[in-house]
C-alpha cells in the first residue's frame, strides 16, 4: 500500500534479484546431504530405541504407577507450544498489518507445521500399545480433554498445512519458470501446486482472501490447541495442576518458546542460506522486542501461578511448591525461571543485546528453558499425590528418565529438523511473491 510502485523495467530487475537470492539455496546447498545423513542416522538409532520400547513395553522408561506422565508428555506440551508460533506471527501480527514479518512468516509456518505434526507422533510414542490408537477415536469420551486434544491437534496441523502451502502457489509458478532443471519428481510437486498460476488479479484476490480467512480461523484453533493441552492437567484435582490460569499460562508460555525457535531458525537461514538482505538486523531487533514482550507476559503469569498459592501454602500445594522452590527440583526450577527466562528477557530490553549473534544464544537458552519448564510442569506434581506413596517398589518414588526415553525424546526434535530441512530444500524459506510485492514489484509479472 505504502510502497511506491516500481516501473516495469525496475520491477523485472528487482524481481530477478529476489528470485535469484531466494531460490539459490534450493540448488546450492553445501553440506545438506551430510546434515540429512546425520538426521537419518539419528532416526535409525531412535527407531531402534522405539523397537525396544515396543518389544518390551513402557517398562523400559522410568514411568511407573505414580509418575505415569514423564518426559514424553513434557515433550508433547513443548511441541504443541512451539507450534503456536505459526498463528502468532502470520495471524496476530499479520492481521495487525505489521509489515516487517513478511520475510519470516514462512519460517514460522514451517516451524509450526513441523512441531504440530510431530506433537501427534510424540503422543503415539507415549502409548504402550500404539496399535490401539484407533480406540482413542472409536471410544474417546467427548467429556475428556484427551479427545478434544487429539481433535484440535489434527485440526491445527491441517490449517497450518494450508497456511504454509497457500502462499506457495505463486512461488511454485516462479520455481517452475526459474528452475526447470530440477529433478522430475520435484517438478511434479510444483506442477501440482501452482494450479495454473498466471498472476491474474482474480487469482490474487482468491489467495489473499483465503489467507485472510485462514489467518482469522487459526486464532481460535491455536488458542484451543494449547488451552485444551493445559486442561489435560488443569481438569484434574492435583495440587500444582488444579489452577484456573493454566490456559492463558500455557498460551503465553507457548509464544515464548515459539518466538525463540523462530529467532534461532532466522539466524540459521540468514547465515547458511545467505539471506542477509532479507532477514536483516532490523528483523532481529523487532523479534527481540517481541521476545521481551511475550516473556514479560509469561513472567507475569508465572508470578500468578507460583506466588498466589505460595502465599497461602495449603498443605498439598505446599508439599509441591517447597519441592520446587527449595527441595528436590529447586536447581532445575530456578535455572529455568531465572537463567532461561528472566535474564534473557531482561537483557533483550537493551538494544545492544538485540544483535543476531547474542540473540541466538539467548534464544537457545529460552528454548531450553521452555522445554525444561514443561518437564517441571508435568513430572514433579505426580510425585505428590494426596494419598501417601507407600508399600511400593523403590523405582515408583523417583523419576529419572532412562536412555531409551531420552533417545525417544530427542527423536521427535530431530524429526522436526528433518521436516524443516525438507521443506526448506523444496521451497524458498522466504515468500518470493510477498517480498517482491512489498518492494513494489508489479504483481502481474510474478508468475
Amino acid at each position, binding site marked *: 500500500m505504502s510502497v511506491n510502485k516500481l516501473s516495469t523495467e525496475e520491477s523485472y530487475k528487482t524481481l530477478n534479484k529476489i528470485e535469484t537470492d531466494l531460490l539459490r539455496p534450493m540448488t546450492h546447498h553445501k553440506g545438506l546431504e551430510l546434515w540429512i545423513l546425520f538426521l537419518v542416522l539419528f532416526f535409525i538409532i531412535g527407531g531402534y530405541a522405539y523397537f525396544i520400547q515396543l518389544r518390551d513395553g513402557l517398562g523400559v522408561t522410568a514411568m511407573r504407577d505414580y509418575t505415569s506422565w514423564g518426559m514424553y508428555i513434557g515433550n508433547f506440551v513443548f511441541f504443541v507450544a512451539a507450534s503456536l508460533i505459526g498463528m502468532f506471527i502470520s495471524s496476530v501480527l499479520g492481521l495487525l498489518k505489521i509489515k516487517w514479518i513478511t520475510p519470516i512468516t514462512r519460517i514460522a509456518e514451517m516451524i509450526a507445521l513441523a512441531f504440530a505434526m510431530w506433537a501427534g507422533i510424540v503422543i503415539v510414542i507415549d502409548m504402550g500399545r500404539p496399535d490401539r490408537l484407533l480406540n482413542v477415536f472409536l471410544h474417546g469420551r467427548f467429556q475428556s480433554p484427551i479427545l*478434544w486434544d487429539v481433535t484440535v491437534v489434527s485440526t491445527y496441523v491441517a490449517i497450518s498445512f494450508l497456511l504454509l502451502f497457500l502462499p506457495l502457489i505463486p512461488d511454485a509458478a516462479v520455481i517452475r519458470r526459474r528452475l526447470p532443471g530440477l529433478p522430475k519428481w520435484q517438478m511434479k510437486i510444483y506442477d501440482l501446486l501452482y494450479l495454473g498460476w498466471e498472476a491474474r488479479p482474480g487469482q490474487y484476490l482468491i489467495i489473499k482472501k483465503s489467507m485472510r480467512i485462514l489467518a482469522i480461523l487459526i486464532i481460535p484453533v491455536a488458542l484451543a490447541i494449547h488451552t485444551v493441552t493445559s486442561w489435560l492437567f488443569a481438569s484434574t484435582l492435583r495440587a500444582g495442576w488444579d489452577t484456573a490460569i493454566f490456559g492463558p499460562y500455557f498460551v503465553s508460555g507457548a509464544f515464548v518458546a515459539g518466538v525463540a525457535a523462530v529467532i534461532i531458525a532466522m539466524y540459521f537461514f540468514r547465515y547458511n542460506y545467505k539471506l542477509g538482505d532479507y532477514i536483516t538486523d532490523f528483523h532481529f531487533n523487532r523479534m527481540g522486542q517481541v521476545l521481551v514482550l511475550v516473556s514479560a507476559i509469561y513472567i507475569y503469569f508465572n508470578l500468578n501461578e507460583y506466588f498466589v498459592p505460595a502465599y497461602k501454602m495449603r498443605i498439598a500445594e505446599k508439599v509441591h511448591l517447597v519441592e520446587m522452590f527449595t527441595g528436590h527440583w529447586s536447581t532445575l526450577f530456578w535455572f529455568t525461571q531465572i537463567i532461561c527466562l528472566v535474564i534473557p528477557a531482561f537483557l533483550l530490553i537493551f538494544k545492544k543485546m538485540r544483535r543476531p549473534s547474542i540473540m541466538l544464544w539467548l534464544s537457545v537458552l529460552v528454548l531450553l528453558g521452555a522445554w525444561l519448564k514443561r518437564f517441571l510442569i508435568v513430572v514433579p506434581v505426580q510425585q505428590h499425590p494426596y494419598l501417601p506413596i507407600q508399600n511400593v517398589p523403590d523405582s515408583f518414588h523417583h523419576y529419572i528418565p532412562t536412555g531409551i526415553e531420552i533417545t525417544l525424546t530427542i527423536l521427535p526434535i530431530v524429526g522436526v529438523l528433518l521436516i524443516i530441512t525438507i521443506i526448506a530444500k523444496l521451497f524458498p524459506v522466504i515468500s518470493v511473491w510477498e517480498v517482491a510485492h512489498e518492494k513494489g514489484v508489479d504483481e502481474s509479472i510474478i508468475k
Partner: protein
Amino acid sequence: MMKSNSKVLIAIYFLLSATVVMGQATEPWVVPAAKKSVKNPVAVSTSVIEKGKSLYMANCKSCHGDPGKGNGLPLVPKPTDPASDKYQAQTDGEMFYKMQNGRGAMPKFAEVIPDNDKWAIIHFVRTFSKKKNSADAGKIMPDTLPAGSSFTSTSLNGKPITLKLKFNEPDSTLIATVSTLNEDGDLLPVEGVPVGFFLKRYFGSLPVGEEIGRTDKDGRIEVAVPRNLPGDTSGLLHFIARVTDPEVYGIAMDSIGASCGKPLVIVNITEERTLWGRSRVAPLYIIITFFGALAAVWGTMGYVVSNVLKIAQKDV
C-alpha cells in the same frame, strides 16, 4: 447385580462389625449348657457334606478362611480356623449356637441359613476333625430338600410334621398349615405349633407380623403382609415360614415367592448424561459444541480449499 450388591453389603457389614469389635477384650464365649448338648439332628452323608462345603464357601470362608490353612481375615479377635484343635474341641451344639446367635464381628445366622443347612456346615467342618466324624449324634434324616419345597421333620412324638405355606393374593396374607400323618397316612392338622413368618432380605430375614403365633385347631396360622414392602424389579418377595421351636416340634419350613411387593425402580446413574459418564451419554451441550466447532472449522477450511482450487480456472 443383586448378587454382587448383597456381597458388598455383607462385606461392609462384616467390616463395620469388625471395627466395632476391635479393642473389645476377647472374653470366652459361653454357650448355655442346654444348647451345648444339642446333637446334630441331620444325618451325615456325602451330599450333606458337599452341601455344607458349598455353604461354608459362600458364607464362612470370607472371614474364617480355608479350613486348615489359617488364612482367615486378620480381625481382632481373629476368626478361628475351623480345622484347629481349639475349634474342633467344641460340641456340635456349641458350633450351632454360635452360628445361630453370632457375637461381635461374627454375624447372627439364625435367619440367614436354614437350621438344617447350618447342621450341614457343621458336618462339613467336622471332616477336618482329627477324631474323624462326630456323626454319632443325630438320627437318620433325609437330605436337605431344594429351596421352595416343604421340609419334613420329626415331631416330638416321632411322627413327621409338615408345613405348607400359601399366599392369599386378595387379602395379602400368608397362610401356613402344619400337619402330621396318622397311622393310616392321612394328614392331620396340628394345633399350637409356633410358626414364624419371615421375608428374605440380602442378609438375614425380616420377621413378618408383630409376634410369633401358634396354629389353630385346623393347624392354620395366618399373618397379614403389608402392601408397601419393597420387592425386586418385578415386585417379587420371598417369604419363609418355619416352626420356631424345632427342639419341641421338629424342623419344618416352607418358602414361597409372591409378587406383592412394590417393584424396585433402579435408577441407573451411568445411563444419565453426565460429565463423568461414557461417551454415549455425554451431555448434549458438549456433543453439540464439539461437533459444532468441528463443523465450523473444517467447513471453513473446505470453503477455502474449494475457493483456492478456482485459481486453476481460466476465467478467474
